[in-house]
């Protein structure tokens, strides 16, 4: 089985797992869920890191570097703002 096909298996199963886990998140937490998801989509930083590490030309290095910066904004900003919101949720 090709690497592509394995990737597709993983993608489909992860989507289903995500649906199971996330559909049980209560409406109260939908905004933090979304900003947390923002942070997780910053995982693209891994792709940008791999590309930058292998960069042989300046153009690739610049593209990779800008990619890293944008993904890092998501990761750092996303997790921090989610934490800031969640610490406001208090029980009586």
């Amino acid at each position, binding site marked *: 089985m090709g690497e592509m096909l394995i990737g597709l298996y993983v993608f489909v199963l992860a989507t289903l797992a995500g649906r199971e886990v996330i559909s049980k998140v209560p409406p109260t937490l939908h*905004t933090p869920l979304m900003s947390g998801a923002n942070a997780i989509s910053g995982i693209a930083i891994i792709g940008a890191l791999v590309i930058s590490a292998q*960069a042989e030309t300046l153009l690739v290095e610049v593209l990779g570097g800008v990619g890293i910066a944008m993904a890092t*904004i998501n990761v750092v900003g996303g997790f921090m*703002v989610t934490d800031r919101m969640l610490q406001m*949720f208090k*029980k009586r």
Partner: protein
Amino acid sequence: MDLTTLVELAYLLSAVLFVVGLKRMQSPATARQGNGLAALAMLIAIVATLVDNEIASWTAILIGIAVGGLAGGVAARTVKMTAMPEMVGLFNGFGGAASALVAAAEYTRLQHMGAVPEVGVGVTIALSMLIGAVTFSGSMVAFGKLNGRITGNPVTFPLQKTFNALLFLAIMGLGIALSGSFTAGGLGLMSLFLVFTGLSLLLGVLLVIPIGGADMPVVISLLNSYSGMAASAAGFIIGNMVLIISGALVGSAGLILTMIMCKAMNRSLANVAFGAFGGETGKAAVTAGKKNARSVDAEGAATLLAYAGNVIVVPGYGLAVAQAQHELKKVMDMLEEKGVQVRYAIHPVAGRMPGHMNVLLAEADVPYDQLFDLDEINDDFARTDVVVVVGANDVVNPEARNPDSIIAGMPILDVDKARTVIVVKRSLSPGFAGIDNPLFYMENTLMFFADAKKAMSDLSKELREA
């Protein structure tokens, strides 16, 4: 065990922690810990990647992380909670852009090497570029609409749908040419790729401009989903499972929220995307004036509330616009001291993004066990002494039960079934849907004509004296 295996196991641990972290988001009591676990998962994945790759140059990596970390940190600390939709909209765009840049960098690298990769790789690069670019430009338009820099009204032009369809076909054609023609030699392929990128960016803009301001919760949920799928596509490019998995998780989350928002507005996704409905105001006939609305002043409202056994507050976005959350909480605290049971009923579209109102109330120190969503509380209105509607309109409009109304079938909070309803509102004007609200003229309804903030401070003054 060799290094590669260790790195792969670290990625596996990271993927598991992402799932467990999201699972902890199922309760406000564990959510903060869940967010921390997801952040830990991210850290593990980043460290594993840095260990796994021989880094030729640290310059781009260190500058990128420093700049991004600083910008993200400052944004997270300073953003106002009312501006969360803008921030999420912007971040969706950055996620998409990062994935598009990975695609662009990989394409540039392959061109430089003169390599001839298999067709599959070409397809993943084209797909990652397309989704990433659409997410980026679409999110920028959504961001502009949310903060008022771009009109919240639907922007339409003749033959828009036909044009969009043709544009999509052109992108598909170019994508296929790009994926298949690595073997055709380097001639002109780079310019082909640039055109492909440009058209993808244009598609993102055109998909979002016809959507009105009121539909933005659906749009940012959908773009959230896209940003995850873009990350997954980037994962296919570099053959990394943790990227594919976490991208898929975000894709799921965004899609679920999109569906919930659509259901709450009683619209199909296709209707939101192509209907150009939201933001349309005053189109339907407004029949105010024929009937009489009864009004009440602060003193009267305070008396009603103080002698009630139980009160339900229905906050809408108007409350947040008036920045009246804190004053509202003060009034409700005073009522609780008098022994009144106080609860809050939150409609799914009460804010400008899913769950927005809950965050705004949490910021004002309203405990989350006082917040109830539509399904939990709707049956209780009939047993409620006083309902206070602050800054909400369409979500409490009983017209939704009338099959001939344009909002027919939209889920509403059944406030009209309560013994007394106090509506805090500046005038009798209609809401986003542009239709009159019969609730205002019902026998059990009292209109408290005032700005939400002023109304709440007047109420607390009266309650203090009472």
